[in-house]
């Protein structure tokens, strides 16, 4: 009996070792692929950084009016943002190739699904990126306009506009990624509607005086004396 137990154990161990031995080449291929992709990413990153610095990419982006991109870039450098993006893309591709080296149908299907999902993922990243830039731009414009009009709730208005745009782009990004489904739609509608209602109340209640002064002016009544003393033009 002891011999049979020993034989069964030896067979199980042999199966495990055989299974591991079958897996080993794929694992080695994965590790090699990842290492090679890291090496390639470093080389590409170095070359890209040198070439972008050579053409003053940061200065050109600022000159083309993309100063918003500097604000969300690491160390305020769009060059660094581009280099890191390329770096991680190369490593990701290397890892996916390594995973595909496993001779397993499941992993191949997973890689295929991942690749078909990639455009949606990239679109979502771009949406969030540009949404952030646009949100900051609009928020700043609203804040400056509100301060120039001497409105007391300028900051609130500016924050409201910023979060409106961010919520909108985040909902669009999640829709692209297919995450959440109807729950995200509903949550977005409630949140968006709530922000708009809050802004409308803030503007309506806070600008009563401004609206009444504007209506008086339109009906031809005299402007305040203080405004007539100064001739800026």
């Amino acid at each position, binding site marked *: 009996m002891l011999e049979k137990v020993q034989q069964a154990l030896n067979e199980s161990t042999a199966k495990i070792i055989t299974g591991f031995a079958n897996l080993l080449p794929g694992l080695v291929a994965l590790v090699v692929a990842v290492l090679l992709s890291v090496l390639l990413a470093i080389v590409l990153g170095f070359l890209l950084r040198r070439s972008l610095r050579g053409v003053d990419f940061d200065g050109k982006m*600022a*000159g083309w*009016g993309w*100063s918003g991109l500097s604000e969300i870039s690491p160390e*305020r450098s769009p060059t660094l943002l581009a280099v890191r993006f390329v770096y991680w893309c190369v490593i990701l591709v290397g890892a996916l190739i390594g995973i595909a080296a496993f001779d397993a149908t499941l992993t191949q299907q997973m890689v295929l699904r991942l690749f078909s999902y990639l455009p949606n993922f990239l679109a979502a990243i771009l949406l969030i990126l540009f949404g952030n830039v646009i949100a900051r*731009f609009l928020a*700043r*414009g609203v*804040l*400056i*306009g*509100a*301060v*120039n009009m*001497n409105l*007391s709730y*300028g*900051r609130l208005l500016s924050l409201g506009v910023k979060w409106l745009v961010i919520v909108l782009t985040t909902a669009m990004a999640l829709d692209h990624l297919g995450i959440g489904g109807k729950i995200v739609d509903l949550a977005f509608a409630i949140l968006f509607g709530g922000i708009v209602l809050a802004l409308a109340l803030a503007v309506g209640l806070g600008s009563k005086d401004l609206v009444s002064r504007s209506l008086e002016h339109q009906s031809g009544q005299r402007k305040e*004396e*203080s405004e007539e*003393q*100064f*001739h*800026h*033009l």
Partner: protein
Amino acid sequence: MAALETTSAEAKERIERIGEADLVVALPSCHSAEKLEAAVAGLRPVLPGLLPDGKTVVLYPDSASAAALPDDESWLQLVACPMSPVERYHEPSLAQGLRSLSTVGRTLGARAFIMLGSEAAATIPDGLRKLAEPVLNRGYDLAVPLYARRKLDSLINSGIAYPLTRALYGARLCYPMAADLALSPRLADQYLQPSVLASQPQSGWATTRATCLGLQICQVQREFAPAPIVSEQADVSTSLAQVLSTLFLDAERNAAFWQRTRGSQPVRTLGEPVPVDYQNPAADVHNMVETFQRGCRDLLDVWAAALSPATLIDLKKAAKLPTERFRLADDLWVHVLYDFLLGHRQRVISREHLLRAMTPIYLAWVASYALEVQDLEQRAVEDRLEKLCLGFETLKPYLLSRWRWPDRFNP
């Protein structure tokens, strides 16, 4: 021959039939029949004295073509052209008007080109006579008006345009943003160069262009500046942004010139100054100071993109002053303008946002200036403004060093 592409087919045909003229006058502000009739009636007695045997062509907007004008005479011809109102502080509209005037004038071989962009019909004859005479008879290339000014008139010009252009270009032209001016053929040719004709949106004010070219300029004493036309009655923020945009773009375009100038030279002034009533009531500056204080609370992040840390600290200190003792030092104001000019050049943030963000600081300067001059007489006010201009000139080396070696502020 200059191309008449900016005129309509009818106007082109009429100009070709006229053939030649000594003086071409553009009246873009006469866009109604009544205004045009009044203007022409005023011009008739003036022109024979100005040009005894010469011929004058008057360009007026298409919209006034229904005017019941008398038949043309040999010495006065009227031509309807597509023309928009010229906004004094909106340089593109002014440049567009000058291009059309120069095109027609050079086709006719005129000796002087007059633009009366902001003149009310009643003052056109006087404006024409005073501006045309230096160019026609004294050999000047550009004649611009020098308006009489009360204490709180033309504040953007007094606080920004005049001192900045004086420091940069070295010419003491009191009203650099002129919409009423007389040009010689030499200066008009500048508006016919291919780069200018190729619908370049902004080609600079005629005054800075003439100064950079070393042409002969004079200023002519006039009465008070005309009231802004309807489209100019935008809010302060919009007007200020327009003026600053033109000033700063001009500075970038002419950097090679102004980096070599040092100090400033007076510009020849013709005519007698108009007496001015300096009895201004006490100015209410509460709203302006409040706007500035609000700006210091809410716009510091925006200002920090362009202003140096030392300037920001000084602005914060100024915001703490009570309204009745509110003052903005000249040095601080000059640093702010120069820093904004540099920030505009480096595009630290959107240019539109940067220029509009300057409104609260400008209002602070206006409040400080109004409080300082409220009890001063004319001579003292002039001295006060002269002190400001000297401040701009004294601090020009600061601008030069930062222009040549730009650095970034990342507080």
